[in-house]
Structure formats: C-alpha cells, structure tokens
C-alpha cells in the first residue's frame, strides 16, 4: 500500500474543495448592517481585486508540483508553502474586507460565507495531507505549522486586519458581553465536568469493588444520555421552580428553575457516562497481582486506593474527563435557553435577531474552546502515560 499515493488523493480532495469554494457564488457577503441580506461576492471577483490572492494560489499550485516527488525535504517544503498560502489567503481576505467597507459607521461588515469556509477547510486538508507524505504522521510538524498560522492570525487580529469581518466585528461590538459569555460558558462546563468527575470516580470505584452495583450505575448514566437534552432541561425546571418558590433561601444560592442550576444538573448528568465507563475500565485493567502484593504488604484499603489503584487508573479517568469536558462545552450552549448565560445566550440572541455573524461567532468560539481543551488534555494524558512508564 503506497502511503504516498493515498495522501495525494486526500490532497486532491482538499484541492477539489478549494475549487468548489472558488466556483460557488457565496464566497463573501458584503452587508450594510447585520440584518440585511447584502451583496454576495464570489471568489474570482475578490482575486481580481486583490492580486495578492492570485499570488497565493499560484504558489499553492506550484507547491503541488512537489507531490510528484518522493523526497522528504520536498514535501516538508510543500507544508511550508501551504502554510504561507493560508496566511496570505487570510491576509488577502482581510485586506479586501477593509477596502470594501467604505462606510465607517461601524455597522457595515463582510460576512464569511460557504465559499470561504470550503476554501479554508480545503487548505487545511492539504496541509494535513502534506504532513503525511512520509508515510507516518508527523504530528509535530503539523502542530508546528498550525502554530505559525495561529501566530499570524493573532498578529493580524491585533493589527486590525480582520476588523471588518462580520464575526470579528460582532466580537468587538459586544466585547465585554462576549468575554463574559466565554468565561461563563467555560466555568459552567468545567464545574459540571468536575462534579461529574467526583461523582463518577466515586461510583466507578464502588462499582469496581462491588460488581453487583456496577450495572446499575452504568444503567443510570446511560439513561441520562438517552433522554433528549431539551426534555431533561424542561423536566428539571418544574421541580426546581417549585422548590425555589417554597424555599426562598435557595434563590440566594442561584438555585431555581431558571439560570445556571438546571443547566448544571443536566450537564453533570451527561458527563457521568464517559467518566464512569473510562474510569471503570481504568480500574479493571489493573493487574490482580499488583493489588494482592499491595494488600499483603500491609497497606490499608485507603492506602491501596491512593497509592496504587488511583494512580494506575488515572490515565483512564482523565480520558473520561476529557470526553466529558469536550461534550459539556458543546452541550453548554443549551444553557442559554434557560438563562444560564454562556455562549448559548449569544447564539440564541443572534438567531432571534437574524444576525448570522453573531451565531457564527458563538459557534466558532465553542468549537475552538472544545478543540483547545481536547488538545491540552490529550497532551497531559499522553505525557502522564509516558512518564509513569506504562503504555
């Protein structure tokens, strides 16, 4: 199986996607304000206006010549070229948006449409493929180049090149609101995941020590996954509202039918299944001989747990926590429906006001957060496994 050949196919798919982005009408949309439909611009028009983009894509095609080659250095070069192209592409779009918006009333903006995203995704696929050419996946290379791209995005962001892009504009307009939403969202997901971690590990340990309870715990956590999120939320609101009416002090703590509390309960319940599943597996893969030795040495049950069972199950537990955190970040959007704040509130606001840029901003922020958290935790788990000397 020729690995090189296959990655040429994926590169081809990436290029195909870019072509789709080129051919479609909806590349960018120039809108006089956040609500009106605006003028749809296609990619050729933008390229005509900004020769830098033309250069970028010429470079891209030139870089593709190296696909034919088999030498390692040349493919490394392709990755570098694609990175450069991506940066130029973003820069070009930014510049274009700056020039097109002649009205500085702060409401007009350029929205990124499907065409843009196709091209962007296509470029990412090509970059990813170019880091595979050697047959094995050069993770470090990919991360390195992605880092470079992120760095330049950050710089361009700071310099204001993207200021006229709809998403960024919304962020600037609602700056304080946005960051409060981000913090609230992160906090809620984190707290829910941590609560789930505590409860989940506890239940997992009990289920591991006493097998007869195990299936009940798994059944309950599975049930929490089956019930539709909105239904769960709604069903919780009823008793909580009634409770809050009866016991006024609960309102002080923020516990009522609306606000963060019902969302917190729902989110925590959803984290139970991944955490319990992974934690139980983590405990069960510990060799019996290890436990026998530990007990025979005169370790008390608590000592066996803290010194032996918990550290050995930790990678598994953290994997479950990682999944839980990523899922919570995505699910937390629904908190916005019941007044729990977070990016969901912004998303629904955007939906209600037909401001697609606000919706896109919220959605993208959630995805970014999820990916970053996923990345951080994966690295932590990986290094933990390596350091502790077991696979």
């Amino acid at each position: 199986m020729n690995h090189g050949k296959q990655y040429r196919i994926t590169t081809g798919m990436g290029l195909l996607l870019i072509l789709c982005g080129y051919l479609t009408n909806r590349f960018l949309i120039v809108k006089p304000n956040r609500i009106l439909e605006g003028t749809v611009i296609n990619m050729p028009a933008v390229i005509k206006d900004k020769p830098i983009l033309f250069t970028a894509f010429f470079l891209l095609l030139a870089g593709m010549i190296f696909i034919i080659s088999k030498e390692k250095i040349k493919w490394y070069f392709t990755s570098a070229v694609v990175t450069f192209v991506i940066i130029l592409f973003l820069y070009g779009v930014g510049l274009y948006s700056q020039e097109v918006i002649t009205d500085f009333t702060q409401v007009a903006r350029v929205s990124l449409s499907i065409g843009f995203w196709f091209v962007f995704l296509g470029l990412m696929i090509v970059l990813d493929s170019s880091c595979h050419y050697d047959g094995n996946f050069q993770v470090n290379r990919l991360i390195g180049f992605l880092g470079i791209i992120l760095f330049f995005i950050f710089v361009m962001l700071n310099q204001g090149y993207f200021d006229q892009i709809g998403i960024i504009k919304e962020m600037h307009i609602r700056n304080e609101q946005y960051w409060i939403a981000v913090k609230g969202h992160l906090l809620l997901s984190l707290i829910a995941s941590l609560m789930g971690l505590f409860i989940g590990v506890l239940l997992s340990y009990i289920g591991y020590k006493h097998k007869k309870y195990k299936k009940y715990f798994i059944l309950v956590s599975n049930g929490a996954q089956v019930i539709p999120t909105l239904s769960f939320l709604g069903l919780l609101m009823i008793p909580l509202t009634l409770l809050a009416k009866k016991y006024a002090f609960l309102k002080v703590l923020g516990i009522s039918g609306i606000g963060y509390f019902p969302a917190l309960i729902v989110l925590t319940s959803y984290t139970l299944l991944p955490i319990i599943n992974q934690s139980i597996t983590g405990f069960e893969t510990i060799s019996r001989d290890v436990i026998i030795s530990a007990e025979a040495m005169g370790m008390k049950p608590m000592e066996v747990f803290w010194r032996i069972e918990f550290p050995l199950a930790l990678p598994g537990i953290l994997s479950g926590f990682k999944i839980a955190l990523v899922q919570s970040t995505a699910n937390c959007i629904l908190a916005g429906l019941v007044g729990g704040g977070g990016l969901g509130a912004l998303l629904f606001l955007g939906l209600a006001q037909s401001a697609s840029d606000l919706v896109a901003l919220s959605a993208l922020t959630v995805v970014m957060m999820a990916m970053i958290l996923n990345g951080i935790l994966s690295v932590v788990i990986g290094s933990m496994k390596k350091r502790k000397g077991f696979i």
Partner: protein
Amino acid sequence: MIHFKNVSKAYGDHQVLKDIDVSINKGEITVILGPSGCGKSTLLKLINKTILPDEGDIYLNKQNIRDIQDTTLKRSIGYAIQGVGLFPHMSVKENISTVPKLLKWDKRTIDNRVQALMEMMELPETFSKKYPIHLSGGEAQRVGVARALAGNPEILLMDEPFGALDPITRGKLQRKLLNIQKKLHKTIVFVTHDVSEALLLADELILMKDQSILKKDHPYKIVTEAKALLKTFTGGSFAFELLEKFRISDIVDQLTGLQDFDGYCLHEDISLKEVVSEMILQGKSQLTVRNNHQYYRLDFYSLMDLAKRKHYE
C-alpha cells in the same frame, strides 16, 4: 515458630483445608509441595492473614495471630508471588522501598537498604530508575524478592515465585535464594508443585494432597524412606535435585586426599549432579577431582551418602 492448630478452611461447600496441624521451624526453608488444588497456597495465605481460617488457630512465636493487628502482621512478613505484582507506576527503587516507607524509616536508611538489596539480588545500579515494564521476567522477580525482603521481615512467604520463568532463569534464581539464605537465615515458607524445585530448596519438606498434610520431614529422609509417596507426586528421578545442592568443595572435608596423581581429573568445582553426569559420559564409576591443590577420588556409590551427611551438619 509458626504453628497451625486444627485449622480448617472452606469456600462454600468446597473444603480447602481439613484439620491441619503443623509447625514450621525458624530460620529454615520449609517447602510445601503438592499438586494443584491441594490447598498449599491457602495454607500460605493463612500465615499473613490474607485469608482467615474457619476453625483453628495459627500461632506466631507463641502468639495467636488473631490478636495481632492485620497491618502490623503483614508489614513484618514478606510476600512474593508468581505474577510478582510490581507496581507499574513506580520505579524499581520505589517498588523496593514500599514497605520501609510504610514502616516510616528515614530516607538514608531506606536508600542504603535498597542499594544493599539490589546488590544482593545482583541487580545493576542502573536498574533503580527503571520501570517494571522494561524488565524481563527474571529481573522482575528479583525485584519482587528484594521488595519482599526490604522491611527485614523474619518470615518470607513465597507462592510458586519462579513458576512463570524459563528453566535457566528459574535455576539461577533458585540458587540465588539458597545463597542469600546462607547469609540471612530467614524463615522461608515456599509453595510449589515442582518436585525438583522442592527437593533443591527444602530444609524441611511438607507433602500435601487432597486438603491435608501427608508427611513432613527432611527431604533426604522422604526420598529414602517415603519414596513411594513421593512417586505419587511425580516420576522417580529426584535424586539429582538432592545432589545438586552441593558442590565438590562442600564434601571434600569428608574425604581423604590422594598423595599425588597422574592422569585425567576434574578441575572445576561443579555440583555433585554434574559429577554423576560426567561419570555417565565417561562410563566410569569413579572420578578423580582436584580441589584446592589436593586430589580426591569420588565414588559413585557414596555420593548420596556424602550429600546427606553434609545436609545434616
């Protein structure tokens, strides 16, 4: 030192031990030999309270172990098992230090102890930072034994510790155990189903079958007097293991040296088992050996006797 009095144990309707009454002497290697399922492992586990008896009492130095606190008891008894059970997330050094740390020794004492044990078990210094996953079976078991001895326990319990190793490594470790016992004089209770291993290691041999003890005696006595019984455990070629316990240098003090000699003789200080092997190869019932600038004549028919006398010294 360890006394079992009318001890019985059952799991549900399955009787594992029936009215066991036996004593284990101090400072010796006592081997419990028996086929799978005869209850020998259970007997071992009763000593450090891993399992509790249904009936009967177990005494340690005249004290009923029921009255000794579990953790105190376990920390004063070393335990080595077949699967070793090294803690995967701890280095070799940390593994060995486990019991000393539980006993709250100070750091310097622990470090010295670990070093001494690693030297004794012939583990190179570079191993102290290694993790169990990088060790071979033999190396892991060496660490396991070191770990069991770390707290300087009086008693060492071993449950078929060398069973999972290849024959060569097994042999090395068996000889290692005999070696360190010469220096340490621990009370070792060793469980196995391998007759050769039992005969090689035992100062005292306990034969178990069908949940009860059949015989307890010196291995040489059992071999000569209870041969039929022993044969029910295995085939018959067990004399070699007894001969393997001693080398030429061990028995020469019982022999008179020759004045001088010309001709073929064995120079190396090999075990008596190898001497017999050499005799068979050469087709001779007598061989001349050289030890410490002296020549001695070894006779095939008297070898067993010499070994037995050495054993009883």
